[in-house]
């Protein structure tokens, strides 16, 4: 009988090891002195130093940050407006529209990437930062939309009515009352969107131009020549940033409750 109660814990342990071992190894080997990944040559920060000196990587990092900032800001505006607008509509098509709005999360990325590629070349857009921002904004919108929608459902409708009753125009009531109350949801959605944009490879590869590299693309191309310790270091940096953003996002979400 005792074994029976232990079994779930063993199962959980195995799953966790399988899931996180590669990540732990990557972080571990990023501090490896030796150039060959499989041999431990002592602790060192030299790969991080090398990373700092790599101009291409810095350029890619800058691109990634700009891309993530622009697309998560744009999607914040569009997603918020969408959620607020949808909350006021009482129609039968509402459910369908809401479903369609969240579809980009469910469509395989490779399909999205191909679709963007075909669409942008049809429009004749120059591939580069513009197309990257457009594509990333599109797949970031659902995160904001869903967060804000959830917040609005829990919000007392009479608050806005009270503001109107006290003399606020609809626009004024939105900025004074509704926006401050949904701000935590927008912020947490934006952080999530930032993280999603920052580490996206598949869609970016399809829509980027020859001269614009993002950090994940850079890693991917470097990997073609084998896993270098430098990549391990870079992955660790990205990992830390992403985990931090997701942590912030969930903190904000918890706080608003």
């Amino acid at each position, binding site marked *: 009988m005792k074994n029976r109660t232990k079994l779930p814990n063993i199962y959980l342990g195995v799953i966790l090891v399988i899931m996180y071992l590669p990540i732990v190894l990557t972080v571990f080997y990023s501090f490896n002195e030796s150039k060959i990944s499989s041999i431990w040559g002592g602790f060192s920060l030299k790969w991080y130093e090398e990373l700092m000196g790599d101009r291409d990587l810095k350029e890619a990092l800058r691109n990634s940050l700009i891309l993530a900032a622009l697309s998560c800001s744009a999607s914040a505006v569009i997603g918020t407006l969408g959620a607020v607008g949808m909350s006021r509509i009482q129609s039968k098509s509402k459910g369908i529209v809401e479903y369609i709005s969240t579809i980009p999360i469910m469509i395989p990325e490779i399909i999205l990437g191909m679709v963007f590629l075909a669409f942008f070349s049809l429009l004749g857009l120059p591939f580069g930062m513009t197309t990257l921002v457009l594509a990333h904004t599109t797949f970031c919108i659902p995160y904001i939309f869903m967060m804000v929608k959830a917040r609005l459902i829990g919000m*007392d409708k009479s608050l806005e009515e*009270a503001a*109107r*009753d006290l*003399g*606020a*125009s609809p626009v004024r009531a939105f900025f004074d009352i509704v926006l401050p*109350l949904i701000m935590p949801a927008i912020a947490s959605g934006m952080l999530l969107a930032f993280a999603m944009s920052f580490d996206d490879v598949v869609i970016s590869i399809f829509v980027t131009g020859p001269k614009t590299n993002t950090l994940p693309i850079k890693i991917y191309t470097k990997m073609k020549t084998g896993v270098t310790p430098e990549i391990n270091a870079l992955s660790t940096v990205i990992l830390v940033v992403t985990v931090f953003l997701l942590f912030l996002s969930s903190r904000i979400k918890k706080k608003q409750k």
Partner: protein
Amino acid sequence: MSEVLLDLVDIKKSFGDVEVLKGISLGIHKGEFITLLGSSGCGKTTTLRIIAGLETPDSGKVLLDGKDITDMEPHKRDVNTVFQNYALFPHMTVAANVGYGLKIRKVPKETIASEVEKALQLVQLPGYDKRMPSELSGGQRQRVAIARAIVNHPQVLLLDEPLGALDLQLRRQMQLELKRLQKKLGITFIYITHDQEEAINMSDRIVVMNEGVFEQIGTPDEVYNTPKSSFVARFIGNANIITCQRDGRAVTLAVRSENILINDPDNCPYTATVLEKSFAGGMLRVVLRLQSGEEIVASRHGINIKTEVGETVHTGWNPEHAVEVEE
């Protein structure tokens, strides 16, 4: 009191297939305390929302001071509302909540500060200006909601069951305070409640609502003592509704339970069986079944009805206590 401030003219409103208001009309005087009384779903909140501008009627008119405001947006109306759930802005301090209406009207900051202080004093919450709504008790939130509305000196103040969430003792106290406040400010109050005691305690006039129509409009004395319909008689003061023959035609009478006589030498022409005896709220209630099958309730203060369950008694009422009502 004679001047009509707010006029509702034949207002109709439906939500989908449900007709919530079936053509209601009412003239409300300046400085009047008027109560819309009815059970939930009778359309009283919808009436209030139409006056506030939060709903548009399908037909009919709302006139304020002679001006047609039927299609005017809520923020342009000189009407303020105290919402049922208070609707305080959770991210603003008490002072910011109360001063919100003034701030929108671009009143200078110093004036806002002094007006807010005055309003908080009126609702007996001085010194609470820096608190957040979440730090207040239900009764205190209620007072802030009232202060937030009266600080704007509206022509009409709408109150949607403002005391509904408070306990009985606090409710009694707030009833008195609200009445006092209304007299002091001279603002017209339109008050919604489903509690007949509250309506009788506070109102100049009571409007009894039932299924989207005004059953009766009158002073507390009128609706209590001379109910027009059986609904009003039942709703206000729990009267017995009895059908009987008078001058060869069937009439419906309303007789309050305290006026039902048992084994009185005069006025007791009916025979009845005692079905039930119960004691609650200082009153003894006795349920009687008449020979016609109708059940009536007699009640007395104390426990001074000398009958037992199952016993046969004589019952009736003094004719002057019976009011003829519409079915």
